[in-house]
């Protein structure tokens, strides 16, 4: 599985396994947590500082809750690794990157050429999101 991990970070991959949200909230020293698609990302906010990895589950690619969870965590100031895991397909990765995900653990392998095309495709975006890209309205008005 680790071989299929796609990372967009400079630091070394986090070694410690991710615990469940319940376990994390109950235990004080875990540095990696996994959020299921129906769990509330805001519960992590008080302890973001101790986390190096947050993994968010995408049980089915149509379940878009993880996109909100990711943005919420980035908006709260989380700088660690934010990983999308599960039914992650190449066509969703660009949106996931915009929402703040910087690593991906897809169930099915991703064609690197298709991914590169997808990520580099759109020069412009309309909205401000979690990736720091300037939205079109900012380019229009300086």
């Amino acid at each position: 599985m680790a071989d299929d991990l796609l990372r967009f970070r400079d630091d070394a991959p986090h070694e410690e396994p991710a615990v469940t949200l319940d376990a994390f909230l109950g235990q004080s020293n875990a540095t990696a947590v996994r959020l299921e698609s129906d769990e509330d990302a805001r519960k992590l906010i008080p302890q973001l500082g101790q986390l190096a990895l947050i993994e968010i589950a995408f049980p089915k690619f149509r379940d878009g809750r993880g996109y909100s969870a990711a943005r919420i965590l980035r908006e709260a100031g989380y700088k660690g690794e934010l990983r999308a895991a599960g039914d992650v397909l190449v066509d969703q990765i660009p949106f996931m990157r915009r929402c703040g995900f910087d690593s991906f653990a897809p169930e099915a392998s991703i064609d690197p050429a298709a991914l590169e095309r997808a990520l580099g495709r759109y020069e412009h975006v309309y909205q401000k999101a979690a990736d720091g890209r300037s939205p079109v309205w900012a380019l229009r008005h300086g």
Partner: protein
Amino acid sequence: MYKYDQFDQSIVDTRVEEFRDQVQRRLAGEISEDQFKPLRLMNGLYLQLHAYMLRVAIPYGTLNSRQMRMLAHIARKYDRDYGHFTTRQNIQYNWIKLEDAPDILADLASVEMHAIQTSGNCIRNTTSDQFAGAAADEVTDPRPWAELLRQWSTFHPEFSYLPRKFKVAVTAAEEDRAAIRLHDIGLQLYHNDAGELGFRVYVGGGMGRTPMVAPVIREFLPTRDFMSYMEACLRVYNRYGRRDNIYKARIKILVHELGAEEYARQVEEEWAHVKTLGIDPPDGEFERIAAYFAPPPFETGLSDDVPTDDPDFALWLDQNVKAHKQPGYAIVNISLKPVGGIPGDASSAQIDLMADLAERYSFDELRVTHAQNIVLPHVRKADLHEIWQKLDEAGLASANLDLISDIIACPGLDYCSLANARSIPIAQKIAQRFAGLDRQRDLGELKLKISGCINACGHHHAGHIGILGVDRKGTENYQLLLGGSGAEDASLGRITGPGFDEDGIVDAVERTVEKYRELRTDGERFLDTYRRVGFDPFKEAIYG
């Protein structure tokens, strides 16, 4: 109307190339149909009853002649020479090839059009008042905000995999010509007592299996808070909308289950956070967009008289032409409901003609209405007779706006794999039963809406008379509903009783309207009489 700058054009062009790539991967077998389906749906491409169907976006129902001619071109080159205008101000083509879809999108992009997000679990085309910019009763043109919504919602990275589709409508008058309370979010612009411009925000309306009229979620939202508040509304929905049951996944269910107050509270809480993120475009961006919607260079000193010695022209004038805020001008409604025709369909030749008329007589602008008709918004009264003659030659001069034969009908079982019954033949039979214009005008405003299945794309819940086609033990059957309205007095129709076959339903409609004639008092529309006397006299008349 809005014109793309290099950024808008770049995004649409890139989308074409992205879809071309996705189609190629599908045809080569690199992605399965299950993986490809959401991608093609986000480009408005359905696999439908007869072939692929493409739904092209007409943002807030506004387009110019160049765009209209491209729609005609697509019908001729890639389809069977006609298009179908829909209840969300879009156009559909029923005979599209997947192989051609990227080229069609490229052709559309060349005239600043697209099919982005006209399907899928994402934010769809924002619709608006077809008389925007022309009606005297609007407080401002709502379309700059519709354009802001279009840009904000296009490829929104957080809201592209919502629990279900999401539809927004925006108006700026007390009279609701866009059925805003039957949308996921409905927005009405108005001035509060302090004279500030803002929105009354309705959330949680919709039709389909569980129709609901949207409650007010926020009585007054200042325009400067618009974008961040919308973001908060969508985020709450994306996080908490149901994903366990496709029939319970719209926001109306969430609002209903939480209660309007609790949903509003959650939005306020999220908004308190979101508005600190700097996602609102600057005022300059709104002003830039709004400038495109400035009034056209109207002539002044024009006469308001229209010579009406031609009786057919006089009828059309009376029925289809509406008052314009500018003296000497009028709003022309082109009916796509000729008796015996297919509601909302137009041939490529008719589409080209309407483009020509717009270019020549309406400052190059047309509108598509949610009632599946076309509007020329800014016409000099002096030109009305000439326009009518040209429309008449092309079969586009039916003088039936808002009359019983001005039927909204979904494509139904003739075209749609979701349908349980055919809707178009019912529309045709009813229109033929009431073909006489005198009889129609005597009956007056009567909004009849037909859906071929519970998904309610024909808006039958919002019909003064609504008809729902169902499958009754393998045979088509039609239920009758009374008393719905999609206007500011929004209400949901009530089922009368057991359904009818395709001839029985026409008779039932006739008994209904005859009862109305019997009971009405001066000036009452069907809907008014129904609301005054109630359901029982009609039920009695229908079933005996």
